[in-house]
């Protein structure tokens, strides 16, 4: 298996507390991995280390076999590591079409162009319309984001990420805050993600995890305590313990 994304012995402590303690994992193209763990397990720190918003004390992050540990967050995005946000970060005054067009133009290195309008760029608009169409946002493409429903904003987050043509996609709770009636659309969007894309999803909703993931990683007190198939995860005693809370306490001593 050639890994498209790899983390080797990643460590990071805050004031003596190892929040990320020797994490290693590898993903191949097409992987669907869910990262779960109780509150305070170190998921957010892990995401920040991987995306380059936080520097590790030691360890390595690799994309396509190349180390990106010394490369900043922007450089990692350009190398194909794209994330979505737990709380949507969209431009309220802009339209979905503008969001996706900006991502497409940025990906192609044309976001600095001082002339022309994306509506008049047929190849950009074709991609924008196709992507938004796939996610059921075509009719809303020229509305302001502030006027569209939250569930649709979450879908737009995914659209923006996909427009960057990532190799590795980090989805931070893609269904957080979405009303029950809309989660179906999100799940469908997740099921329709490109087959060769490696997806790492951080999620609390176990139903979603079981439907989406073919591999589950459980993080507790900064270390991986389980890495295996969804069917086994609930049977694992260490996982049960972690979710009951006792492991988190034991972790400090470790």
């Amino acid at each position, binding site marked *: 298996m050639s890994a498209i994304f790899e983390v080797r012995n990643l460590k990071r402590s805050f004031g003596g507390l190892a929040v990320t303690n020797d994490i290693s994992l590898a993903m191949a193209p097409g992987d669907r991995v869910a990262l779960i763990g109780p509150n305070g397990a170190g998921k957010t720190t892990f995401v920040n280390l991987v*995306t380059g918003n936080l520097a590790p004390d030691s360890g390595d992050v690799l994309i396509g076999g190349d180390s990106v540990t010394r490369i900043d*967050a*922007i450089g990692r*995005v*350009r190398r194909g590591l*794209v*994330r979505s*946000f737990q709380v949507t*970060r*969209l*431009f*309220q*005054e*802009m339209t979905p*079409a*503008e969001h996706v*067009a*900006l*991502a497409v*133009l*940025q*990906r192609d290195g*044309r*976001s*600095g*162009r*001082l*002339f*022309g*309008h*994306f*509506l*008049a760029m*047929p190849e950009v*608009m*074709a991609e*924008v*319309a*196709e992507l938004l*169409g796939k996610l059921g946002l*075509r009719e809303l*493409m*020229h509305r302001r984001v502030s006027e569209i429903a939250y569930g649709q904003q979450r879908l737009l987050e995914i659209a*923006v990420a996909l427009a*960057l043509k990532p190799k590795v996609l980090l989805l931070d709770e893609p269904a957080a805050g979405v009303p029950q009636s809309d989660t179906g659309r999100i799940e469908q969007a997740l099921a329709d993600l490109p087959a060769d894309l490696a997806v790492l999803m951080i999620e609390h909703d176990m139903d979603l995890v079981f439907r989406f993931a073919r591999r589950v990683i459980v993080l507790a007190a900064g270390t991986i305590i389980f890495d295996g198939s969804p069917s086994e995860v609930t049977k694992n005693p260490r996982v049960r313990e972690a979710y009951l809370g006792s492991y988190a306490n034991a972790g400090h001593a470790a």
Partner: protein
Amino acid sequence: MTMAAMNDAMTSAPGKGRKLGRDLAGLAAILALAVLGYFLFPNNLALLTRITAIALLVLSLDLVTGYCGVATLGHAALFGSGAYAAGIAAVHFGITDPLLMLACGILGGSLAGLVCGVVILRAHGLPQLVLSIALIHLFHEFANKASSWTGGSDGLAGIAPDPLLGHFEFDLWGRTAYVFGIVLLAVVFTILRLIVRSPFGMLCRGIKEDPIRIRAMGASPKLALMKMYVISGAVAGTGGALNAISTQVVGLDSLSFTLSAESLVMLVLGGTGSLFGALTGTIVFMFFEDLVSAANPFHWLTMVGALLIAVVLFAPKGLYGTVAGLVSRWWGTFR
């Protein structure tokens, strides 16, 4: 994707034609106002040219403040640098062709934009504002001390530009300067309309709303803002050069905190984030200032203050923004 879907996507877009129409309408409005001004105030063309130069400064400020969300109270540094660059080129280097002086002004403004951008963009919010104030004072003091080049507090006098294009003398009535200014404003306005709508303009609007999101798209907000600062410097430098050419003198007031603050007031008055707003604010402020300072030379600033308070309280989107909002709502109701 099918062609039909493509067409569908293109046609449902909010009027590309309407945008072009607004560009032409804007340009037509500038020219109509210019002609109107020429005939209404034939003896006051110097004021109108001054308004044109300041309009360029306010447009330039709108680029960084209105479109990118950078807080600055030192934007006259870019304007003044353009003015001094054009003036020094004429007085010390004998470059008296107005177009070459203009080029020097643009270069000077762009360089000042680069310097100010490097310093100001290191901070955000209040510290950014303070840095900008510190910068304008530094620029001012530098120009004051370098008096062998700038004339210090006496101002840089003796600027004698050649006839424009070899034909049009800069006459006592200021007709040539006025027409030159209006042409410059129209050209700059057209270029800026293109820029704010371009992919780069879209990127800047994104940065204003959420720089972290922009970073997650793989773009560098800082680099984009630097670029905008240099563009803004070129525009302000154009205004500065126009001022130097038309008044034939450059004073320290063109590098002052007062001018910086006034330009921000004009922008807020007209409405930030809109080129029309910047123009409206400049014209209203300058005319209002001229009017009330003639009516009441002692307390005119009080009246300017009252106007500003009224606008901020009752029309927070600025004069243009509020009127445009009302018109579009009215249009929506009756369509």
